[in-house]
């Protein structure tokens, strides 16, 4: 097991009240361990509820096994916790449902998300799973920015979007996969047509 003993980012000790000075240990699905401050955890609704429900003391944190986050790998989780530590104590934005949603990407976040699209994809999934509202907003905005200056044809390539024909073919395939008999019936029908039969029934 590889353990990262130090916090992901330096903590400003003076800024944290004494009673809040507590760290939790989390473990990714590839067994990487992270120590994250309680204040940083508050950025994640999912983790915040989890640690509240567990009611760990400082001793428990050290003595009990790290909390496992089974569907996020270490590389992604590292980015998530870096983001949380940097933005700890910040208010969590409330979504007013407006469209278009105006989101600015701060410099730190832009640098943090200077990653390949595969990792960005995982980061978004993680932000969604852990319910980190603002991380989800900025990462979604990063994806939205890929559309800047792109025509529909270019967008289709960037976002790997299927055309109408491909969508229909996929839908048909899914239907057939659900009901193998439908395909058999269709093939039988085509065969009869070739043989000159004018009625299937």
């Amino acid at each position, binding site marked *: 097991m590889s353990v990262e003993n130090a916090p992901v980012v330096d903590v400003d000790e003076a800024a944290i009240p004494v009673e809040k000075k507590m760290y939790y240990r989390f473990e990714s699905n590839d067994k990487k361990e992270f120590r994250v401050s309680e204040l940083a955890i508050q950025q994640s609704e999912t983790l915040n509820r989890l640690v509240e429900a567990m009611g760990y003391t400082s001793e428990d944190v050290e003595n009990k096994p790290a909390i496992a986050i089974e569907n996020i790998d270490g590389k992604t989780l590292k980015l998530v916790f870096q983001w949380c530590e940097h933005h700890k104590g910040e208010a969590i934005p409330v979504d007013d449902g407006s469209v278009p949603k105006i989101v600015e990407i701060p410099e730190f976040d832009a640098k943090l998300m200077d990653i390949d699209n595969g990792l960005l994809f995982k980061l*978004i999934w993680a932000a969604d799973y852990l319910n980190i509202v603002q991380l989800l907003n900025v990462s*979604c905005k990063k*994806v939205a920015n890929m559309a800047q200056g792109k025509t*529909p044809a270019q*967008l289709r*390539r960037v976002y790997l979007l299927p055309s109408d024909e491909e969508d229909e073919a996929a839908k048909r395939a899914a239907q057939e996969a659900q009901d193998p008999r439908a395909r058999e019936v269709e093939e039988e029908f085509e065969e009869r047509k070739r043989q000159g039969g004018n009625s299937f029934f």
Partner: protein
Amino acid sequence: MQVDRFRLRCLPIDVLKNVLRTMDGDQLISYSLISRTTKQNVIDLKIKLRSFAVSIHSKLVISLQIPKYYQISLTFDENKTMNWNPEENEPLSLDTPEIVEAKCSKDYFQGCGESLFLENRGISVREWILHLFDIFRHLMINVLHLSEESNHFDISSIRRMVEGLTVNRIAFHRLPLDSCYKLMGETNTFLTGILLKSDLMPVEYLHKIVIQNTEITMFHSKILSLEERIQFRIDDILANNSENIFSFFTITSYKDMNRFLKLWMKGSNPRLKFMDVGFTFGGKKELLAIMNGIKYRVMEEDERRVRPCPKDLGPIAIAASEGSFLIRRKDGVEATVSIFSRRACMKFAVWD
């Protein structure tokens, strides 16, 4: 160059929606054109437009305004219309432009961002309008502006573009009289309102146009709005059959207004529901000449009548309160006359 790709459709649907919500308006329109599914994605965002305006001058521009100053504008085929010369060139057609320039501004007071040039693959302007109606679930063109140089375009192509669609208001800006007249003739079947704003037209022709138009559009014309700089006479209002008349900076006399009220009491302008006439202020004492010889009752301190303003004319309600004059038509229908000396206007509201 290797293009970095992103599997957008593999995101959870709520997250995909969040990505689209953070896209700029022009990007969103580009996205909606990819396939039926992407179009549906944009429809599902339930974006509400505040207004859908089509302006035709040397080029055609569709402006979509979303609340909070956000604006998307689509300019059709700008290059083709440059250097157009009426002597040498055929009238331009709006049917299938080659290029659509899309841009948006988060705050239209601050100007627009970079443009996105979309090659238009045989999609007509009308189809564009219908596509935008679909994705923004909007039902009408709120205003169709026709300005100087719109006469470069073939009028029948303008008609084809908007035929069968609801156009809430049409506005003419600095257009020659014959162009206005032809456009009115072409557009009268879909018109619900007219807004004239021009200092080019002589009064006598304006009179003719409005009367002609209101005769043609008797059952369509809901709003006649005559904006600043128009010199308009009460006779023109008497000849008009609109439900709502707004007329500002009118060159008229209190005597004319008095005559109008008397004629209304006898049964003229039976469709009229509301009229707001601004006039040249001639002195506070003379104001009461408006009510000369008219049988009226002055509304009392706690008396008040209110109803919503006609659709698309703004949030201010039509109201009459203390000090307004209450008059009655021969068939018993009541109306209020509110005179505002400071704003130099008379508000006439029918309460049936």
